[in-house]
């Protein structure tokens, strides 16, 4: 179907890169399956370390803005990731934060509940079965027979991509769903660019597209928060109406309520809508509003049933929250 008479149009160059992430976002791209071959046909993938043998110096050699778009997933935890984010920002017309970690900090961002030193000690020295009598910790520089070896340094605080470089668009989700990826790629290739800074998913709450929407009572109240492992969950009724903590009211739509369809409460990976600054704060206010009591003691008793509030309400968004991290104790 290619028009052989016309001079071959120069295909737009794109890059994929990962920082502190799990590979699931890369996997989500590969899982476009047949569609991935179409995407590969429409663009020139100039950098994608997980799949192609291009190297960092290939990117460094590019002109500024040579890449139409870079899709970066993962949070920023090391100096090396920050350098790559800056490099790709410089070489790209559009920088897209791909997935929950780049968008909000993601699950690796829960490390902000601790500081670097205590995590180092726990992981490299104190955990049982780890043999480390001298307390060796990772070194950014080490000498081996006169040869200097280097490793990237770790920051104390995990950051989202836009806390390091300006970001043009965001693709939410852990990982983003095939549908929103394909829509985003089509939008970017069409040239009709949406307003800068947009999250490329519907700007409304997940409850709006939930298959159980009609079972949600008009006045939702609960006098108890149940834990999913203690109850048999009904497969058709609104999870909040069953007293289960579902992040749906505070979370952006676009996943088509994947978790709820699997009978599991939403855990919030798409982040908040554009009207909300702090995802966990919004979730807390949504929860507080359904507590069926006006008695302070009773309200406290009910809210105390929410275990690990930070890990639950800020599961994907701690680095991008107003507080960003747990306050360090004064020494």
């Amino acid at each position: 179907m290619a028009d052989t008479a016309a001079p071959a149009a120069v295909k737009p160059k794109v890059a994929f890169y990962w920082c502190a992430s799990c590979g699931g976002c890369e996997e989500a791209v590969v899982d476009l399956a047949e569609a991935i071959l179409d995407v590969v046909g429409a663009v020139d993938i100039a950098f994608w370390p997980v799949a192609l043998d291009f190297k960092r110096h290939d990117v460094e050699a590019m002109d500024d803005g040579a890449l139409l778009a870079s899709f970066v997933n993962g949070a920023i935890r090391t100096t090396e990731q920050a350098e790559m984010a800056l490099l790709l920002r410089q070489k790209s017309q559009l920088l897209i934060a791909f997935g929950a970690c780049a968008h909000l900090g993601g699950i690796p961002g829960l490390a902000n509940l601790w500081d670097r030193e205590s995590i180092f000690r726990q992981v490299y020295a104190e955990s049982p079965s780890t043999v480390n009598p001298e307390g060796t910790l990772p070194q950014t520089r080490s000498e081996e027979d006169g040869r200097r070896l280097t490793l990237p340094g770790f920051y104390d605080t995990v950051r989202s991509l836009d806390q390091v470089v300006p970001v043009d668009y965001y693709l939410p989700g852990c990982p983003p769903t095939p549908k929103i990826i394909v829509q985003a790629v089509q939008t970017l290739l069409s040239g009709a660019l949406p307003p800068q800074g947009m999250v490329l998913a519907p700007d409304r709450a997940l409850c709006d597209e939930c298959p159980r929407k009609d079972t949600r009572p008009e006045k939702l109240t609960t006098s108890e928060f149940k834990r999913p492992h203690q109850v048999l969950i009904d497969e058709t009724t609104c999870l909040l109406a069953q007293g289960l903590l579902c992040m749906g009211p505070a979370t952006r739509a676009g996943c088509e309520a994947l978790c709820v369809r699997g009978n599991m409460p939403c855990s919030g990976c798409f982040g908040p809508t554009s009207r909300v600054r702090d995802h966990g704060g919004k979730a807390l206010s949504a929860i507080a509003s359904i507590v069926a009591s006006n008695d302070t003691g009773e309200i406290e008793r009910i809210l105390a049933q929410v275990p690990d509030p930070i890990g639950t309400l800020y599961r994907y968004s701690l680095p991008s929250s107003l507080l960003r991290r747990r306050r360090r104790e004064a020494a």
Partner: protein
Amino acid sequence: MSRTRTIKVDYLARVEGEGAMYVRVRGGRVTDVQLRIFEPPRFFEGFLRGRRFSEAPDITARICGICPVAYQMSAVQAMEDVCAVPVDPQVRALRRLLYCGEWIESHALHIYLLHAPDFLGYESAVHLAKDHPAIVERGLRLKKAGNDLMTLLGGRAVHPINVRVGGFYRVPTRRELVPVTEQLKWARDAALETARWTGTLEFPHYEQDYEFVALSHPDEYAITEGRLVSNQGLDIAVREYEEHFVEEHIPYSNALHSSLKDRGAYLVGPLARYNLNFDRLSPLAREAARAAGLGPTCRNPFQSIVVRSVEILYACDEALRLIAQYVPPERPSVEVVPRAGTGYGCTEAPRGILYHRYTVDDAGFITDAKIVPPTAQNQKAIEADLRAFVDPRIDLPEETLTWQCEQAIRNYDPCISCATHFLALRVDRE
């Protein structure tokens, strides 16, 4: 006359993650090999402290987007061990079925998109697809069969959402499993063809006397449970793991290096499973292995691509058997009451054994977590392999040597996102 040459490749591409490899050559001999790993497992062990026991499967899945089921399975097993929860046999069968999906998709990804280009002389699967679109399309479709099975049982293929301590959030009806059956039959044929095709690839002559470590189960090719055994006499329960294995921290790497106490390096993954459990593969899988030129033992890590093909075939066969025998459990999960204690879990991730241990307090909060992913366990074996592999090939042109070294590392399907990130290969000759 002495001369120093350095080959530097700043990333080892086509592994799921990145790291660095340094090879030192002096006087025509390899004197030092170091696998450096830049990005550790994002310190999950650190921030799991304080989370609820019930959240471990979902949080640890985010260590690896390629093998999330492995993380979920080792985590639920450990938590069910803490809480002494009996698992319904049909729930167990469904978990095994979900795991089959992950083996299929993960192995198909590695064989077709990451490893095969090495053998066929292509830079990547994208380049391979230009000349051999049918091969890459078969790989993608095979991967999709695994993904679809995971999606059916787990809601989605990356980070399935259905697994919970005590069972599942919801279980499928028998009827829901029908559509995937046809697809799995196609996949079984495609896996047969994959085994035949990978058997025709050219393998360097290279064998090592590894200590293989894998789970072993009397009645089945172990995936979700078994005893930890080796070809050199190890035979222990999972909870005895820490009496026999240690992890050391080395300043040049951010990932811990595992070894067997007093014995050193060992190898986990498809090759280990195949060698230890060959007789528990399905007859079809054993037959395909023989037809592809493998005996019941295989010590050439380059042939792991064939073994992965055989394991895909087995996973398709096993999935079809599990579906045929499936009767939905009476309830998707049982009630779990947290209690203080320590629990252990170990399952066969696509890349090898994945060990979890958690200590939980009486309110159900995690106070301590230990996770040992397969790539951390293979690091020493990878270093030993590079040393033995490079020695007789020291005079090869650097580009060829570098390529072959990268290929030797890719034999392990190193999921450096589990153990790490970032690999530079550096051969320093003098």
